[in-house]
């Protein structure tokens, strides 16, 4: 069976990637929210594995992670949620994003095996840089889990080429130095553009860009150079007031449609694989 991520990349679609903290803001919200995001145009979803001490995340994801942990979103629960999402019809690639300590506590090999079985397609682990990841990557390869390594604005050309060679299908560029959710001001500044062009010049695989991307204007700007864009903190802010799973799904749908229903969608070629709500979206 072809890898879900490989198939998506082969289609040459731009990647429109929401980051969702599971079981946020309420328990039971994960699967309805994932379905709503898929229906409204997300073609790859980054699902968090909440950690008490998320070093690369800003205040929004920190706070959401605390809520999620209180709502029972342990690593084993997140893997169950992926399985439930697959059963409920989530067909887009799902990439798990989280920190290495919960994975070590769970057992790295056990985690990789069960993540693959549950239907997850890849992993982003921001505190597992290539220096510490070589054995882990070999085991992830064995389980056909795509490893997505990060490229930072301070990475030089050699480092970018190194990371590009290690990432299984695509890499993840941090748009600007800092943690997630920081408003960067403006669609894209010159430094960011220069950085993304430098990444393009030094990569053979595709790359998405994330951190601080909050609205359609920014998404559009990033997609002119990058192969995809990730929006996380702004989505979590949009759903944080929900008091039920249904409301979470509806707020997530409204947020993502608004993001897609803009000039950004004009860039997406071929059109998004819209599922049930295609008519309304078009």
């Amino acid at each position, binding site marked *: 069976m072809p890898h879900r991520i490989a198939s998506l990349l082969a289609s040459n679609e731009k990647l429109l990637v929401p980051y969702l903290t599971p079981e946020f803001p309420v328990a039971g919200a994960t699967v309805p929210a994932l379905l709503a995001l898929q229906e409204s145009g997300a073609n790859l979803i980054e699902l968090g594995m909440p950690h008490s*001490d998320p*070093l690369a995340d800003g205040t929004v994801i920190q706070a959401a992670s605390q809520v999620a942990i209180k709502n029972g979103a342990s690593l084993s629960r997140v893997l169950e949620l992926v399985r439930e999402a697959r059963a409920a019809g989530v067909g887009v690639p799902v990439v798990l994003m989280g920190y*290495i300590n919960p994975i070590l506590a769970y057992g790295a090999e056990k985690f990789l095996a069960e993540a693959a079985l549950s239907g997850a397609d890849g992993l982003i682990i921001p505190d597992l*840089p290539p220096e*510490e990841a070589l054995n882990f990557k070999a085991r992830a390869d064995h389980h056909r889990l795509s490893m997505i390594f990060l490229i930072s604005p301070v*990475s*030089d050309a050699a480092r970018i080429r190194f990371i590009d060679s290690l990432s299984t299908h695509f890499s993840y560029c941090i748009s600007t130095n800092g943690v997630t959710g920081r408003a960067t001001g403006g669609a894209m500044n010159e430094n960011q553009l220069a950085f993304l062009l430098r990444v393009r010049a030094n990569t053979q695989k595709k790359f998405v860009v994330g951190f601080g991307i909050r609205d359609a204007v920014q998404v559009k700007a990033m997609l002119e150079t990058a192969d995809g864009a990730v929006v996380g903190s702004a989505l979590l802010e949009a759903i944080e007031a929900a008091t039920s799973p249904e409301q979470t799904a509806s707020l997530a749908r409204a947020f993502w449609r608004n993001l897609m229903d803009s000039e950004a969608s004009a860039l997406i070629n071929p059109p998004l694989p819209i599922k049930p709500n295609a008519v309304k979206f078009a």
Partner: protein
Amino acid sequence: MIESTSLLSSLNPISPVKTRAYAMPDASGHFGIYGGKFVPETLIKNAADLEAEYTAAKQDRVFWSDFYDLLKNYVGRPTPLTFAKRLTTELGGAKIYLKREDLNHTGAHKINNAIGQVLLANRMGKRRIIAETGAGQHGVATATVCALFGLQCIVYMGEEDMARQAPNVARMKLLGAEVRPVGNGSRTLKDATSEAIRDWVTNPDDTFYIIGSVVGMHPYPMMVRDFQSVIGRETREQFLEAEGRLPDVIIACVGGGSNAIGMFHPFLEDVLEHTSGETRGEKKLRLIGVEAAGEGLDKRHAATLTKGRPGVLHGAMMYLLQDADGQIDLAHSISAGLDYPGVGPEHSHLKDLGLVEYTSATDSEALHALKHLARTEGIICALETAHAVHIAIQEAMRLQGSQTIVINVSGRGDKDLATIMEHIDL
């Protein structure tokens, strides 16, 4: 690689170093399975730049002469090794010596490391300094060296620690530092450290992060250890002069573990030698690290090496207090400086190797020991140090009068007066 010890200035002549049986970390920054660089990609370059700069500085005589000049003429080193005569007589056991890090400028061992790192920051041309602090001693030390070098200083400190260490907050501000309260998570050292790392990720170009303990990503645990090792080297020399031999037991408190590693590291070769076959039968030098047992090991505590499991926090693999899901537990200690759910990777490795014994003392044991030392020796030590004093008192009573103990008095207790007075009837 040239060891910093062989480049020492005349201030601290040391006995010749024999073959080094203990050489850690390895080239990738690991102490056995511990340590490493578990950091976001943005910090990989900073860690590499810092490592390159430190490697160059290590071989630079000017760097070390600047370092030792400041330690001598600004910090006031060497600190004395004081024979605790009344405490020894009262306990009727082993002779107790006190290594007086409390007499350093700013009142604790933290300044040794802050001096070393600010010299590196200067070499690298970084003008914005950030630090985390628990008890405030490292924050004060960093604010002090920033004032001395005219650098901008931002200190992250948990809100709970700001409340219980108010005098140190005032000192930092007086020295011109900005103290940024950290209100999330534990509201103590753990989250102050996370915030400092987040700051560094955000400002990697102009900022130097002065970490206060032997924690964090490589090269920090090695570098902080090297700067703090002046404690153990002085002690070794002073003790040999006083007693003509090495001590039997050396005791230090362990939070992140910088005063302990600074004291222990210059004695590790001695421990290995005593452990090896050639000197079988001789008394073995024992190194004891004392963690905070808080309210008790079955309640809230900070005894990471005693009760934790290996994991990753703040860029390194180390023993960690964590739950079954790998979420970091909140530590608890009456002393802000020990209130940390991790511990240095080298301590983690030394525990597994069995080269250092690790034990713990509770909040109330520490308070009693603090009062005891104050009334027998006229020294009000820090609450952190008091944990080591408690174990030293226990050990002294079990040992013979011919045997000797050194306690590393890591800091003075003025900062803790408010906490002490809540718990001790004067």
